[in-house]
């Protein structure tokens, strides 16, 4: 499944359908909600920071981890300034967010942290043409 994201409504459509896809792939209710949150966070980042982009969720399979879902989020926006900061809770890609900057931001600097916690693999790459996150959530979680 692939979604073109431009605004809030697209984020909600993508996460709702991704949740249903997770259910249909054999993920439990709780696991599907976790996948839904991961998709939501990646989709929000695209709409908030790049304006538009694309998100794809597809079933994958591995001999060790069984079935899984791969989430690919790509956009043509500017690359992350520093991935380590971006993954850190309470930070954007440049560093810690001050508490007062949170008001009206529609976020708390925890989106990628949530993606990392709710998925088992997360990779990021940036090219001059844009950036891309690939996250995988397995039914038999590795750790």
């Amino acid at each position, binding site marked *: 499944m692939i979604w073109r994201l431009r605004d*809030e*409504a697209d984020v909600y459509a993508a*996460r709702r359908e991704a*949740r249903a896809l997770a259910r249909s792939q054999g993920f439990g*209710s*709780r696991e599907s*909600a*976790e996948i*839904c*949150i991961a998709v*939501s*966070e990646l989709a*929000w980042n695209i709409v*908030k920071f790049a304006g538009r982009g694309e998100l794809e969720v597809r079933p994958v399979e591995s001999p060790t981890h069984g079935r899984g879902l791969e989430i690919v989020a790509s956009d043509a926006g500017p690359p992350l300034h520093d991935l380590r900061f971006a993954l850190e*809770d*309470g930070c954007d890609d440049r560093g810690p967010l001050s508490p007062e900057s*949170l*008001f*009206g*931001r*529609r*976020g*708390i*600097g*925890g*989106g990628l*942290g*949530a993606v990392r*916690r*709710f998925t088992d693999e997360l990779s990021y790459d940036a090219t001059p043409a844009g950036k891309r996150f690939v996250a995988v959530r397995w039914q038999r979680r590795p750790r």
Partner: protein
Amino acid sequence: MSRDGSPAPVIDEDAFDRIAQILIVLSDVGGGDLSVRLPRDLPEAHPFGALFVAVNEMVESLQLEKERSAAYQRELEDKLATIDKQRAAIRELSTPVMEVWDGVLCLPVVGVIDTARSSEMTEALLRAVVAKNVACTIIDITGIEVMDTRTADHFIRMAKAVRLLGARCLLTGINPGIAQTIVHMGVDLAGIETHRTLRDALQHYVGIADDDGKRA
């Protein structure tokens, strides 16, 4: 005399006038004025008669088309405005802050909570606490199955912020999974008051308020 030396075709004065009329109308049309028309008083046998009628018909249909597309555009703009309004309404509905009792606000949290929604909720609740001058708020998360640690942390902070604003904050409807998430984060839960259900919290609070004789 034309360039190749053959004699120029003779055009009478009337024909010149007619051509000038056509050119004026076409230039007006080109400039966007579609209300102009050529005179309709030519005799039927006049050599320019058919041309005049054809030009008028063309301008007429252009004008119709333009009006139609303007109406369509207005309709489209109306629809876009409606969508914007509905979107705002949905956002508001997703963070409903209700006054369930005199001075008691309730924030029922349902659906899937990501960081964007948790931050919208905090703001809506804190604004409402101040604007409505409330004494107590109840955050009910019965409808939440999963919460990321960062989001749970944010909710605990929201409860503390409510206390800073001078109101009590009760958390209700925490499910076992989220309870585990919260204790594993190791946050300080001092001053966080929880109840099993929204009903318990309301009974408890309203009971206390009655005892104080402050609220009915």
